[in-house]
Structures are given as structure tokens and as C-alpha cells.
């Protein structure tokens, strides 16, 4: 298992190299390139630009520039962000925790809700609960992230839930934007700020996971070993979770890995709408202001995250299915 993990990690390296080459090649086409901010400055002449290009080594051929770039990236020199006035690594490290907090909590939420929905629907097929789950899955897949976000903001932040019953007044509103309140905030304040972004971001995944869990669980429920487990007199929960779910999870793991790029994309939209200070929002800012080095940094972090996640999914197969041999 360990040797497999190491070999699989080594296999990810060529993939990373190819992706980095694509990122570099695409951003190479960016008009003005890293010098774009200077081009709009009337005090900088064409001769200055030429000199800057030479000093930065931008007039060298593509392969040499790529090799130099990779060299800098590996040694932790990711360049200087024009819009943030700080090293790119600094900007990334500042924003990474917020984005991880958002995406990881969304993923966990989606897994818990999606898997439970899928299991319940599979155990009681064609029941009202099953119809609810199937309909919900279709609605969730068809709902544009930003529209759902606007609806939620309108309902829970602009209006809120105000009810009065038995002499008690319920005033429930959620903050519409940001990471914490302006006065700073404790754990509870941060959670309140996370509720809406997490619901919005996880909607598509909840829908996808519940649909696939239902299908794969239904297949497993009709197998012989499930009947054996029931015949042995095991408890219902044990049969479903230990014997059923563990086997039904295989295709779901593939789907989880496949939806990761979508989660990252959804995070861009979610962070933008909820003014959430994560990497996705930084990316949109960088894109609007043509901050070349920041864009590069963001895409590289993203590629690393996605490759790492695919790796984790591959390793999970080994735990789920001992039949898979690694030699």
C-alpha cells in the first residue's frame, strides 16, 4: 500500500508538469504580459518597456522562460503581485485558509447530506422520501449557483425570518457577506457567516452525491452478500452501513473526485457573491486588473489541489475495496 501511494504520487508529477506548461502557455498570450500595468502609464516610454522586458528576461525564447519560471516556482519565488503590493505567495497564504474552510466544510456537508439522502431513498424506493430526494437532485443540478445565492441572500439576509408565537419573538437573519463581523468575531460569528455560502456551494454536490449513492446503493441491496448478512441476523443499521454502504461507495468516490474541479469553480462564484475573502474572489480581482503573477499563482495552487484530491480518491479505493491489488 505504501509503495503504491509513493508510486502514484510520483505519477502525478508529469501531470503537474504538463498542466504547468499549459498554464504558462495560456498566460503567455495575455496582452502585455507581466508588464501590462506599465503599458498604461504615460511616463513610461516604449524604450523603457524594451529595457524592462530585457531586464526581466521576457525577450528570451519560450522554453527558456518556462524553465526559469518553473525553477522560481519550485524554490518558492512566485513573483510580485501588482494589485496587492506583496509577494504572490503571501497573498495566496492569506487567502488559502478562508477558501479551504469554505470548500472543505461544503464538501463535508455535501457528503453527510448527500449520502444520507441517497441511502434513505435507496432503502425505501418509490416512497414519498424517495420522490423528494430524486426531485431535489434534479432541482439542485439545474439551479445556477449565483441565482440560488441571490435567493438565499434575499430571504435570509435582507428579510430574515421573523415570527411571533406564544409571546416569543423569533428574529433570525444571517449576515449576507464577509468572513466575520466588522468587530471581529468568535467561532460562532464565523459559523454564522459560513452558513449561506456553504449551503450555496454544496447544493450541486448534494444533488449529485444523493443521485449516485441512490443508484449504487440500490444495486448493492440486491446482491447475495446482503441477503447473507440479513440471514445471519445482523442488525439493520449494520447491514446497511457496514455491508451495503462500504460497497456502494466505490462509484461515489469517483464522482466525488470528478466534482472537485466544479467545487473549485463554484467557490469562485460563491466567494464573489458573498464577498468572502478567499482565493476565488482574489482571482476575479486579479482577472479584472490583469494581475499576471497573481493569476499564475492561483491557477498553480488550483492544479495542485485538484491533482492532490484525485490522488486521495485513488488511495481511498484501496481502503474500500481490498480486491484492488497494488503491485
Amino acid at each position: 500500500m505504501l509503495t503504491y501511494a509513493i508510486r502514484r504520487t510520483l505519477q502525478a508529477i508529469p501531470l503537474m508538469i504538463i498542466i504547468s506548461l499549459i498554464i504558462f502557455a495560456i498566460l503567455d498570450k495575455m496582452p502585455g504580459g507581466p508588464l501590462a500595468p506599465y503599458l498604461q502609464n504615460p511616463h513610461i516610454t516604449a524604450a523603457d518597456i524594451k529595457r524592462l522586458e530585457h531586464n526581466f528576461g521576457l525577450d528570451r525564447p519560450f522554453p527558456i522562460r518556462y524553465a526559469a519560471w518553473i525553477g522560481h516556482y519550485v524554490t518558492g519565488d512566485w513573483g510580485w503581485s501588482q494589485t496587492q503590493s506583496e509577494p504572490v505567495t503571501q497573498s495566496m497564504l492569506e487567502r488559502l485558509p478562508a477558501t479551504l474552510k469554505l470548500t472543505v466544510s461544503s464538501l463535508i456537508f455535501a457528503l453527510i447530506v448527500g449520502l444520507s439522502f441517497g441511502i434513505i431513498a435507496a432503502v425505501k424506493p418509490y416512497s414519498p422520501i424517495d420522490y423528494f430526494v430524486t426531485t431535489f437532485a434534479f432541482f439542485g443540478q439545474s439551479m445556477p449557483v449565483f441565482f440560488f445565492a441571490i435567493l438565499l441572500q434575499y430571504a435570509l439576509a435582507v428579510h430574515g425570518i421573523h415570527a411571533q408565537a406564544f409571546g416569543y419573538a423569533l428574529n433570525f437573519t444571517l449576515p449576507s457577506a464577509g468572513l466575520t463581523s466588522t468587530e471581529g468575531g468568535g467561532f460562532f460569528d464565523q459559523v454564522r457567516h459560513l452558513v449561506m455560502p456553504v449551503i450555496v456551494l454544496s447544493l450541486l454536490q448534494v444533488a449529485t452525491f444523493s443521485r449516485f449513492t441512490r443508484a449504487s446503493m440500490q444495486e448493492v441491496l440486491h446482491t447475495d452478500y446482503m441477503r447473507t448478512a440479513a440471514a445471519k441476523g445482523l442488525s439493520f443499521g449494520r447491514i446497511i452501513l457496514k455491508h451495503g454502504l462500504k460497497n456502494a461507495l466505490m462509484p461515489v468516490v469517483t464522482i466525488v473526485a470528478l466534482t472537485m474541479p466544479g467545487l473549485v469553480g463554484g467557490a469562485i462564484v460563491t466567494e464573489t457573491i458573498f464577498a468572502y475573502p478567499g482565493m476565488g474572489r482574489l482571482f476575479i480581482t486579479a482577472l479584472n486588473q490583469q494581475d499576471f503573477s497573481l493569476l499564475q499563482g492561483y491557477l498553480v495552487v488550483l492544479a495542485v489541489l485538484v491533482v492532490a484530491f484525485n490522488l486521495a480518491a485513488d488511495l481511498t479505493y484501496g481502503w474500500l475495496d481490498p480486491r484492488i491489488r497494488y503491485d
Partner: protein
Amino acid sequence: MAIAPRVAVQAEFPPPLDQPGEEYARERHLAWKKFTRHRLALTGAVVLLLMVLAAVFAPLLSHWDPNAIDSNWVGTPLAPGTYGHALGTDDVGRDLLARLMFGARISLSLAVTVVVIEILIGTVVGAIAGYYGGRLDYLLMRATDVFLSIPLLPLLLVLTGIVAASSTKAALNFDSIVIIIGVLSWPPVARLVRGAFLSLREKEFCEAARAIGGSDPRIVIRHLLPNSIAPIIVQATLDVANVIILESVLSFLGFGIQPPMASWGSMLANAQDTITYAWWDAIFPGLCIFVTVLAINYMGDGLRDALDPNVK
């Protein structure tokens, strides 16, 4: 008396085939019956048809110019039903219904064009990989793996950002967006076609076609493609829904269809500032995207059931 048993027998057994094409016709008939039995799919198809009709006949259905700014009402969106605006106006006094219908033209035609491009590229790549196999297959599939592991939305945003930066944002027109999305979204189609071809090329009918001297292009076009068309149709249908969402996200973030041209996503983005007092500007475009995508998804699901011979 002599007639009755014959009728009964005919009802039990299908009539003999007169022409070779008749079997296909009967299969199509069966698929159509299965599809129409799927009530949600049929509803989806009807809703989609209405949307397409509204888009096609937008100039006839609406007497408002979708881009005409009514200077009397700039800054004060009119509520639905006032001054002949059935769904109200937006923040600069443009008729919402007219913009929704003209937006449907953009959103729907863009999605269909993208899917045509994506299917063409994906089918060619998948067909070559699946039919020839070997090292070519290995190379092509590793290339699709690379494409699949790069998150699509950021990549699209960077590319549209580059187009926007190289000239003006107006360069982000219909054509450039179609090309950018189309060229990047073929890998899943390629995988699908490759998988179908891999199993089909080992079948007897393919061997027979080769034995009677059929050339490679002939075998691929006449024998393999028609047999793998069902999953391609389903994928194409569902991808139209995906591209509608993708375009609306791009437009929403400001890197899609540029104003004053209307697309559902850009209308929603525009409505964000006025949502607290003009809910209709956000709700109606959002509902249009949601309902259309939902209709297509249900339709795709029905098509999958109807075209899959294993589903009874």
C-alpha cells in the same frame, strides 16, 4: 371465423420485415413510446419547445425594443404590469419580457452551437482513440485526462479575460465565447465515444464489415457511429443544459456576453444592485435559466431511458 385467429396471431408476433430499414423504424417507434411514457421528460420537452418558440419569434411577440432605454424610468424599475410592461422594466427602463426573449435567443443558440462543436471534436478524438487503440489511444486519452483535471471555470475565465484584455471587452462576443467553451469541453464526449467504440469494434458485425473489405472510414461512419449514437445524443442534451449554466456564470461574472446585449446571466448580474426593491429583475431571468435547465435535464433523463435497450 377464419379471420379472428389471424388477427390474434398478428397482435402477438411482430409482422415480418419487408425491408431491412424497418427494424430501425420499429426500434425508433419503441423509443418514442418509452419517451412519451416518461411524463416529466415529455413536460420538459414541451417547456423547452415553448422557450425555443419564444426565442425564435421574439421580434414578433414583443413590441418593445430589448435595448431601448426609457429615460423617464432610469433608476426606478417599473413593477410588472405597469405601463404595458408585462414583467416590468430593469434599472434603465428596458422592458424585461423583451430582454428575456432576446436573451433566450443568445443563451439557447450559444449553448446549441457550443454543443455541436464539442460533439464534433469529441467524436473525432474518441473515434480515433477507440477504433485504432494502441499508442495513439494512450496519447489521446492522457491528453483528455489533463484537460479533465484542470478546473474548467477558472480556465474559461482566464481565456475570456485574455480576449477581453487584448482589445476591448466588446470583443467578448458570441463567436469568441462559443469557440472558447466549445474547444475546452470536448473531453467527456471523447471518453464516451472511445468507450463505445472499444467494445463495438470487437463485435461480429464489425468483423464482418472488415471481412467484406470495408475501409476504416466506412466502418466507422456506417457501422460504429450509428451504434453509439444513443449515448452521444443523451450527453449532448445534458450538455446543452450545462453550457446554458456555464454561459450564465461567465456573463454573471462579467466575462461573458457584454451589455447592452441581453443574456439571462448578464441580466441577473445587472439586477443584483436593485434586488432589495425590484425583485422581478433578478427573479425572472433566474427562473428562465432554472426552468430551461430543469426541462432539458428531465428530457435528457427520459431520452436515456428511451434509447437504452436494457431499460424496459
